[in-house]
């Protein structure tokens, strides 16, 4: 037997299909799948969130506030706490938590409602605020979220999504990090109706507590004028302040005939 060596002509071991095409096809397929699961689980969360009892929420809250509770309460926090307690006293139908407010250092001009009646106000927001009435409006807005249990809903969806993406890609994958961020923020965008409802709740509570609604729109108006993003980027912004929210508040003030009187000054040290 004579062996004649020949060069390989067609490489049958490597597929000829372009990898980029493969990549886009797969990405679309998987994103569709994730979206379907996300929407389905989202409905489940919307169903479960209003049914979570106060006790269960308190247990859940321990994960979030463990770090916050360690620090000794500052003078500002005590001042905010007094405003908050005043608001809670005048409110109706809030879940029976002992409401607490914390201040955290962050560049984010925002305040968040965490499970168990905990509100975190970021220091940058306090720097923007000019009067106690504005601050009360922000706190009352967060109380509005507790009243409607929006905070659980938002958290639930983000939680569900994070679970999916970390199960698929792992925790530290930039893809899952990006998707988690985008969806958490998109959640806020989707819940514009929730934000508006919380705004209206806050307005009513502010009127009950102070006897007038002076300062109610000041903070939001200031934020709207500072917002230089195109509307399309709201989806990536941490907390959008669109004009429609301010307008809705102004409209509610006129229709309900709320008065506006002198505001109490507030200065962040």
């Amino acid at each position, binding site marked *: 037997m004579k062996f004649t060596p020949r060069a390989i002509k067609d490489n049958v071991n490597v597929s000829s299909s372009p990898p980029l095409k493969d990549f886009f096809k*797969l990405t679309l397929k998987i994103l569709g799948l994730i979206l379907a699961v996300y929407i389905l689980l989202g409905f489940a969360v919307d169903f479960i969130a209003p049914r979570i009892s106060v006790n269960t929420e308190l247990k859940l809250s321990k994960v979030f506030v463990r770090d916050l509770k360690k620090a000794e309460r500052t003078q500002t926090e005590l001042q905010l706490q007094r405003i908050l307690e005043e608001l809670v006293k005048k409110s109706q139908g809030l879940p029976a938590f002992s409401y607490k407010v914390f201040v955290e250092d962050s560049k984010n001009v925002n305040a968040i409602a965490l499970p168990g009646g905990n509100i975190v106000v970021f220091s940058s927001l306090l720097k923007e605020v000019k009067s106690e009435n504005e601050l009360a409006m922000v706190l009352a807005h967060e109380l509005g979220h507790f009243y409607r249990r929006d905070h659980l809903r938002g958290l639930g969806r983000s939680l569900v999504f994070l679970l999916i993406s970390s199960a698929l890609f792992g925790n530290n994958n930039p893809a899952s990090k990006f998707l988690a961020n985008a969806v958490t923020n998109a959640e806020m965008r989707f819940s514009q109706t929730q934000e508006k409802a919380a705004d209206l709740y806050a307005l009513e509570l502010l009127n009950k507590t102070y006897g007038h609604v002076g300062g109610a729109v000041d903070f939001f108006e200031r934020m709207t004028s500072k917002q230089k993003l195109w509307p399309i980027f709201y989806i990536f912004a941490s907390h959008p302040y669109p004009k429609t929210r301010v307008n809705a508040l102004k409209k509610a003030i006129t229709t309900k005939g709320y008065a506006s009187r002198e505001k109490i000054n507030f200065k962040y040290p």
Partner: protein
Amino acid sequence: MGDLIYLIILIGIGYSVGTMVEKRHYKRIEQREAELLCLPAVSAKNLLEEKPVGEARLVYGNAVISTDYFKSLLAGLRNLVGGEVSAFESLLDRARREAVLRMKAQARGADIILNLRIETCQITMTGSVEALAYGTAVYYKK
């Protein structure tokens, strides 16, 4: 937003640099394969022609080829839905052919390499693949 940019950069670098490196590697492989074509490497255990043997010894060559970010991501996506992982095919093909070429380089002057075997193993931490080619280089009595 930052995460998305980071991701796109990684995919972009992975794809462009990975494709370039692969093209170059294939060019080199084909060129060397043509040069070494006169030295046959076969999987047969016995000599193909009856000739007196002067020397026979073990020759081997191995190559470790790494994946790139784009290929890993593509394979990861494929992992979710199942099917052929075509992203890694070229990786393994390159590793095998490179290993055979290195084995042939070690067997310079031989007349034939018998009993060629190729083994593969993965290096898990880095996402690389190793191919080891070994055989018996036979030198005929001159």
